[in-house]
């Protein structure tokens, strides 16, 4: 039995749009419950210190205070973590950054809780801090965690770089650095914790990865997983950012709820969020490349140090993605890459859209332009000479068995942007004008989904009701990316229904088994495959029920236009609703659960090689900029962004992802930096942490490339993250084209453009 998936590749309206445009969507901050208390956090006063004593008596005596908890009140594990168990929701003996909590208060109002926090007295023994990951790795550096400051070392090895450099006509060495940036979702982190009458602890809030949060809360609060229920409220943006920090909020609020038996709201202010929530890793990158005079790359040796901050969080995974992709999408016969993640007393770093790729892409794509410049080649031609093609072998030794479209992306994008003409014309025109014009490009490849990071599997439940309406449940999260709509489209396609008949149920850990996190741009390819399987299984049952009545074998029956009908004979049909009723009356189960596991892949950590991902996506972005050399102002006039998504299930949503990713990368390239001085955050709100406004983002031309992949539903791969990893490099290359200045450190803010270095704020204690 088949269907007619005509809705695939069209752009029906988002299923969650109406509630969002009317303001009726319920976000975490909109939740209220009877008897609800408000929590506030007493944060650390030193970035690295031993806690000597905590006195809470005065805070507890304040009228309206219901509870004050410290680490001593934690009934379960003191910490949680993805691999290294080091993140303490409330610090016990030691604080490691200024976002650590030493106590948490619940009170009748937020104002009372705030006053109570000020009444808590903590005595510390200040310890020397480490704020640069390169310093942290030195043998005499102060130890932040007992096992030392090295979180992880990953490597990639291919061929023999000695041989490769020997074959080269030139060796080019360059160093780059990237900055700490904030997700800057417009909704800050918030949870409401409460107890169901059966004793289940419920944490509802701005969650991205519900099952991670459940594990952390259950472990820290000493509860079985079955007694912890995580529910997602409408999520006001996440971009990888509402994972560990939401577990922290969940543990804190959950503990207070257990203590008081009342609902607890814990909501981070923007200032709390900037200090406490994890950021994107700053990287220090050293590249050495061997190249022949004809432009052939012979070898690359790469050394990278990542600032993990106070806790490991996703550092192992982020840096692994970097080590796999660090050469960029190029044929390099000899590769030696090492990456080290180190603890510091800075705000910890973790997942952020791109996940270890925006940093390396900035470096290797700046580098490609620099090499092309040294060789006197056009940056496009230099790349076209070296990019990976079908059946090529990557830096990790993986033979690519799908359509390798980075060359296509380069060609399509440069054609759309008028590359050849502008590269030639702008330098001539710039001589006579004040505002200097430039155009630059960047391209990348990106492993889809989790890869060899771990198990990659997820489930979906499709339930057909007696009236022909349908419920869809998965364990994955809508964050704004359009997952509810894409998944509903898949069910509608397979069941032959209009999308309005599909109801996407809210995401709740008590309704479906753990299907992993909503990360790594895995939802469409892994989650979509599970959804499709579940829908097909449900449809088969309808077909079986209707086959007898329609007098045709199930193989001849299709679901289309809200009917179950004989293929090629639409008169012989029953309505979808009738078929559902018939099946239910026959005692059939019209609920189906399906599970999808990614194809096999492998990684040898010892040898630094493997088939890291089961497929890859490719993209290219071009930025055209205008630079004011007097003020350092860079205007991004236009961006062309081509991304191979396999198949665009919903093109308008894909376009939204591309435009959004480009804007995020413009911020990364030009404006954004969470400035920290000796562990103290200097950018405390959105007046100091600048993200692009509508006037900072020029015209974006989204170009969708479709080379269908055998592993994706309808050939679809992914789009979310690759869109955010390119534009910072494209802008740096465009600025160089405009001004002749090569800037190797992000962001390219006013001072870097004019002075060539950053300005540092004076020290000021903010807490």
């Amino acid at each position, binding site marked *: 039995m088949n269907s007619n998936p005509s809705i695939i590749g069209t752009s029906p309206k988002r299923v969650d749009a109406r509630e969002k*445009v*009317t303001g009726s969507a319920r976000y975490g901050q909109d939740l209220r419950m009877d008897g609800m208390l408000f929590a506030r956090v007493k944060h650390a006063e030193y970035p690295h210190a031993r806690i000597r004593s905590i006195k809470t008596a005065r805070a507890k005596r304040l009228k309206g205070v219901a509870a004050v908890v410290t680490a001593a009140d934690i009934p379960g594990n003191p910490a949680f973590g993805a691999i290294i168990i080091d993140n303490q929701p409330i610090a016990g003996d030691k604080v490691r950054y200024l976002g650590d909590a030493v106590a948490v208060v619940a009170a009748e109002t937020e104002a009372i809780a705030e006053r109570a926090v000020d009444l808590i007295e903590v005595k510390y023994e200040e310890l020397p801090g480490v704020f640069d990951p390169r310093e942290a790795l030195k043998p005499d550096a102060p130890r932040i965690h007992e096992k030392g400051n090295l979180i992880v070392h990953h490597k990639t090895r291919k061929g023999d770089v000695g041989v490769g450099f020997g074959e080269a006509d030139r060796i080019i060495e360059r160093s780059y650095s990237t900055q700490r940036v904030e997700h800057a*979702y417009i909704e800050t982190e918030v949870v409401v914790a409460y107890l169901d009458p059966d004793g289940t602890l419920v944490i509802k809030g701005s969650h991205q990865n519900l099952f991670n949060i459940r594990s952390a809360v259950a472990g820290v609060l000493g509860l079985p997983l079955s007694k912890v229920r995580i529910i997602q409220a409408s999520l006001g943006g996440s971009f990888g950012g509402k994972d560990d920090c939401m577990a922290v909020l969940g543990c804190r609020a959950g503990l207070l709820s257990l203590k008081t038996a009342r609902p607890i709201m814990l909501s981070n202010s923007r200032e709390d969020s900037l200090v406490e929530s994890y950021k994107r890793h700053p990287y220090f990158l050293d590249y050495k490349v061997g190249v022949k005079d004809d432009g052939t790359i012979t070898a690359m040796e790469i050394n990278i140090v990542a600032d993990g901050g106070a806790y490991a969080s996703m550092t192992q995974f982020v840096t692994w993605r970097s080590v796999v992709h660090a050469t960029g999408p190029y044929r390099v016969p000899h590769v030696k890459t090492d990456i080290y993640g180190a603890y510091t007393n800075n705000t910890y770093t973790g997942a952020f859209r791109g996940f270890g790729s925006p940093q390396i892409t900035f470096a290797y794509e700046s580098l490609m332009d620099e090499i092309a410049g040294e060789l006197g080649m056009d940056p496009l031609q230099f790349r076209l000479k070296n990019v990976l093609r079908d059946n090529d072998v990557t830096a990790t030794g993986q033979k690519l068995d799908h359509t390798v479209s980075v060359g296509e992306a380069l060609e399509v994008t440069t054609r759309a942007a008028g590359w050849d003409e502008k590269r030639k014309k702008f330098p001539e025109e710039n001589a006579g004008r004040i505002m200097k014009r430039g155009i630059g490009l960047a391209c990348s490849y990106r492993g889809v989904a989790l890869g060899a990071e771990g198990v990659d599997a997820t489930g979906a439940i499709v339930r057909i009701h007696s009236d022909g309406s349908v419920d869809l449940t998965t364990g994955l999260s809508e964050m704004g990316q359009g997952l509810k709509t894409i998944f509903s489209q898949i069910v509608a396609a397979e069941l032959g229904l209009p999308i309005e008949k599909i109801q996407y149920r809210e995401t709740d850990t008590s309704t479906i088994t753990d299907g992993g996190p909503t990360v790594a741009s895995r939802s469409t390819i892994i989650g979509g495959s599970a959804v499709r399987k579940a829908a097909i299984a449900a449809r088969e049952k309808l077909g079986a029920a209707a086959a007898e009545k329609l007098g045709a074998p199930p193989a001849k029956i299709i679901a289309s236009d809200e009917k179950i009908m004989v293929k090629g004979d639409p008169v012989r049909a029953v309505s979808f609703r009738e078929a559902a009723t018939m099946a239910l009356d026959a005692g059939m189960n019209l609920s189906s659960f399906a599970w999808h596991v990614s194809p096999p892949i492998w990684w040898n950590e010892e040898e630094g090689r493997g088939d890291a991902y089961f497929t890859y996506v490719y993209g290219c972005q071009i930025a055209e900029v205008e630079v004011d050399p007097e003020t350092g102002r860079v205007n991004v006039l236009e961006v062309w962004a081509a991304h191979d998504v396999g198949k665009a299930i919903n093109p308008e949503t894909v376009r939204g992802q591309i435009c959004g990713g480009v804007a995020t990368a413009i911020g990364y390239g030009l404006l954004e930096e969470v400035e920290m001085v000796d562990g103290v955050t200097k950018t405390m709100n959105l007046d100091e942490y600048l993200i692009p406004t509508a006037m900072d983002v020029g015209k974006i031309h989204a170009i969708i490339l479709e080379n269908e992949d055998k592993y994706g539903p309808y050939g679809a791969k992914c789009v979310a993250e690759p869109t955010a990893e390119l534009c910072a490099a494209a802008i740096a290359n465009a600025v160089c084209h405009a001004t002749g200045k090569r800037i190797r450190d992000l962001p390219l803010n006013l001072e870097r453009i004019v002075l060539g270095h950053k300005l540092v704020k004076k020290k000021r204690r903010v807490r």
Partner: protein
Amino acid sequence: MKKITLKITINGRKHTLRIDPNLRLLDLLRDELRLTGTKEGCGIGECGACTVILDGRAVNACLILAGQCNGREVVTIEGLTGKDDLHPLQQAFIDHGAVQCGFCTPGMIMSAAALLDQNPTPTEEDIREAISGNLCRCTGYTQIVEAIQAVADDN
């Protein structure tokens, strides 16, 4: 703290309320009246998630004391929505894919509504300027600008 009396029209409805003098307009809307479509993202007037229309002009409700609104008229996203029909801007945001996480959407629509009330035929530059106080981290603004332009084109 001594309460003050506030007479205010919100979404066409007249209210007489006893409020704390330090109550922000945002808190009045969200906490007292439970009009939660108006969001809080920064508390310092930078993100625009709390944008409402006060006497015809788009303002940040986090920067205005409720007491300053005595005798004045406020429209929130809830007031823009008709009984059966959506406001043309709301419909255009849906039609043009201008909504992702949706957290900035109410404020964004209120800024756009204020713009179109004052200037029914704005240029793209006018639109970008009018929403430059509303931060969006999801969309890159492209489809938002297109949605507002489409409504303007119908004017």
